[in-house]
């Protein structure tokens, strides 16, 4: 959520806040993640990633300001918008079909208002956070949402059939045109706000055009409600409309907030659009089930035993006071009355976390683990997998990991990430990567491509099997290829490793297994462009150092050589040696032409000739 530093300071603190970066750090170490800071004119916008368990009470400036007050100790002092009015008899009626859909629905009619251009401060605040000012009424609802986290809505009362609001399930096939001009087909699991003839809004997600407010609006119906979070989430996901409102509702703010927001929105609208003829009616409040009051009992010993701290009763009291919690203390036991809006706090563990994060994880002492009894067990499967891998590497095989999702198989996903790979693999297939790697053989300086992979494969019943797949160019005829006793007799084999390992003896340590020095090599990006291969063979006097040939070659190849020239043939006859070198040319950032390579080869051949080496 994007938060304005200036907004926090002006609305919630009399004392001066630390600099924006310090505010962001305080939040990062004690409350939430910070995505970034961005200067915006005279303000700084902090992008706060509120954790999922606090999304019900902290997706707002006030929520973030409260956290900040708790962790910095700077007193929280909330400003209120003033407006004078005395409510009159209501002419609005509200009917909630099922309290499951909306535990609380508050409506209020206001008549005889006059829309004026929203004041600069309001436009500024919205625009700083990347929102567009639309008109005083819409801006007022957006402001309330960003300030205290409760979505509200305003309908043009004169566009309703009558002042009767229904909260009901949509009828299958019922449609609504939303404020952004989309026509949406509803299902009978979606909740709508409707007048007698049709839907006015998709509850908690998006308003409709039927009762849209405009500059000409004079009479309005305000809505501040609590909607079923699962319902809102499902509807908004299905129709692909995610809004600031749906995001709040799906995280279930307390229904108590709806009442506060209605009062807030009323004051704001009266102060922005009120005239001496304005009539504010009493709110109609359909509230089925308020949250039960919760108490959590936790003792300081328990807190210390989980955090590994030595907090005193006073220190814990101090943190509870910062939260502003109501609590009773009996010895080291705290009985805390949980504030209504902290729906995430229900058990002692929740309180331990609150104490821990405010105290600060940086202050928690790092404590060495104690010794364990001396009967550690070792994993046989891991042991042999590792031994087999090492033996394969010794035998010239390189290890690959390929995706578990494949175009064919027996076990299909109901929701594949890629339509062309909907199956979990039933075998490890290296045919494609083998062909690919064969093209890189010279580039990699390999005599032959050999690859292997160890991983699970799946059958139709979702049973999984550990297999070893090996793939090689040819099986050597002269000597058997048997890494770790596994006989490789075909160029492609898939071996059931579960069976192999099952027959091997038990183990009692990893001795010698993990001593192999791991690579500390840093990754080097490699060229994605094709390479060109040329061999050059030349007769040289027997006493010539082969390095002389290599350095002579390198003089003309510059950095076009993808790897050092590799000796591919050596032949001695009549006091002379013939050395054949294979050269691999490649640009990092473009395609190399045959002609370019031809010119280089010509220069090398000339240089060889000048040295008296006979090019073959």
């Amino acid at each position: 959520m994007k938060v304005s530093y200036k907004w926090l300071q002006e609305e919630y603190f009399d004392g001066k806040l630390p600099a924006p970066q310090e505010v962001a750090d305080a939040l990062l170490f004690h409350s939430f993640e910070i995505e970034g800071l961005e200067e915006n004119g005279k303000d700084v916008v902090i992008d706060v990633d509120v954790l999922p368990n606090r999304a019900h009470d902290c997706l707002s400036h006030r929520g973030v300001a409260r956290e900040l007050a708790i962790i910095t100790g700077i007193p929280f002092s909330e400003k209120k918008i003033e407006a004078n009015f005395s409510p009159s008899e209501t002419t609005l009626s509200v009917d909630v079909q099922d309290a499951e859909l909306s535990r609380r629905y508050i409506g209020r009619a206001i008549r005889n208002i006059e829309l004026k251009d929203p004041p600069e401060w309001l436009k500024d605040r919205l625009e700083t956070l990347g929102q567009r000012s639309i008109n005083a009424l819409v801006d007022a609802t957006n402001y309330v949402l960003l300030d205290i986290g409760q979505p509200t809505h305003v309908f043009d009362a004169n566009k309703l059939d009558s002042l009767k609001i229904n909260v009901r399930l949509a009828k299958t096939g019922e449609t609504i045109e939303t404020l952004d001009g989309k026509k949406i087909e509803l299902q009978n699991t979606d909740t709508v706000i409707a007048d007698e003839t049709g839907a006015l809004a998709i509850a908690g997600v998006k308003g409709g055009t039927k009762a849209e407010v405009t500059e000409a609006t004079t009479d309005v119906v305000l809505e501040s409600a609590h909607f079923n979070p699962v319902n809102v989430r499902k509807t908004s996901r299905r129709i692909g409309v995610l809004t600031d409102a749906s995001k709040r509702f799906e995280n279930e703010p307390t229904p108590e907030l709806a009442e506060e927001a209605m009062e807030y929105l009323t004051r704001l609208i009266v102060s922005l659009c009120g005239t001496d003829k304005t009539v504010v009616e009493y709110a109609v409040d359909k509230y089925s089930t308020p949250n039960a009051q919760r108490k959590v009992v936790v003792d300081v010993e328990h807190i210390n035993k989980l955090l590994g701290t030595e907090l005193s009763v006073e220190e814990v009291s101090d943190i509870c006071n910062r939260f502003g919690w109501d609590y009773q203390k009996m010895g080291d036991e705290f009985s805390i009355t949980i504030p209504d809006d902290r729906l995430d706090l229900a058990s002692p563990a929740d309180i331990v976390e609150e104490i821990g994060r405010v105290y600060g994880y940086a202050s928690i002492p790092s404590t060495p683990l104690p010794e364990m009894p001396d009967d550690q067990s070792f994993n046989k499967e891991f042991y042999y997998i590792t031994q087999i891998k090492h033996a394969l590497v010794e035998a010239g095989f390189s290890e690959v990991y390929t995706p578990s999702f494949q175009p064919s198989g027996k076990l299909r996903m109901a929701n594949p990430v890629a339509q062309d790979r909907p199956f979990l693999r039933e075998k490890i297939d290296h045919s494609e990567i083998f062909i690919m790697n064969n093209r890189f053989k010279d580039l990699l300086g390999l005599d032959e491509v050999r690859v292997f992979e160890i991983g699970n494969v799946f059958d139709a019943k979702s049973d999984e099997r550990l297999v070893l797949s090996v793939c090689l160019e040819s099986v050597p005829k002269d000597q058997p290829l048997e890494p770790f006793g596994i006989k490789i007799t075909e160029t492609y084999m898939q071996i059931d490793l579960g069976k192999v390992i099952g027959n091997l003896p038990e183990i009692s340590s990893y001795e010698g297994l993990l001593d192999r020095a791991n690579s500390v090599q840093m990754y080097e990006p490699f060229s994605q462009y094709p390479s060109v291969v040329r061999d050059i063979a030349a007769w040289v006097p027997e006493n010539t150092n082969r390095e002389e040939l290599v350095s002579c070659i390198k003089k003309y190849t510059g950095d076009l050589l993808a790897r050092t020239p590799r000796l591919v043939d050596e032949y001695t006859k009549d006091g002379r040696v013939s050395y054949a070198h294979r050269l691999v040319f490649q640009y990092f950032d473009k395609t190399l032409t045959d002609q370019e390579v031809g010119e280089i080869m010509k220069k090398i051949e000339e240089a060889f000739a000048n040295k008296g080496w006979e090019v073959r």
Partner: protein
Amino acid sequence: MSQKGHLHPITQTIEHVVSILNDMCFELDFGPEIETEENNFDLLNVPKDHPARDMQDTFFLDGISGKLPRTQTSAHQVPYMRMKKEKGEIPFRMFSYGRVFRNEATDATHESSFFQVEGLAVDEKGKITLGHLKWTLEQFLKRMYGEDVKMRLRPGYFPFVEPGVEVDMFFAGRWVEVLGAGMVHPVVLKNAGLDPDKYAGFAFGVGIDRLMMAKHGIPDVRLSYQGDLRFVNQF
């Protein structure tokens, strides 16, 4: 053929991880890649209507209900705890690693399947604390990246731990998020048949791919799964 092959950097990272955790008396145990929905979610205190269960994040099997490709190695926590309780082997320290699956669009830092390692330690309450977790993770990162590695904890949220923390490491000039951890949630202990008034534990989960990427300066996780020896043979 006299040339040697190469071990994939994921495997090299796994071997390093096993060696470090083994020295700290963590025992390795594997869980299945196809898990029950119960082990993967319910028993880990992930509510039925939790957004993580949405089709966007979790793969579901076509025609088989109640099972799924695990989204986290944490799925092995409760079955393992139950087994240890059955055998009367508490305290214990265990770890598990393997492929996990997430239904996310792939990019340089996300793959739809990747490797994770999970650590879990349980003891009597008071003998295992957030302080022990902090020490364990410090040791882990120091052995992985060198003595002068810097680590910090900050609040994080995972339904199966509380307090929950995110762990950052200062690497190559900036703080990078490397793992999530916390004290085992009392509901999870209860689900495993352990009384949270008597027992406590900590758990941590690390992306092996991320450890590998940091170690070798690999910019794109997808390089790992392309079977390209121009990549593998560098290590």
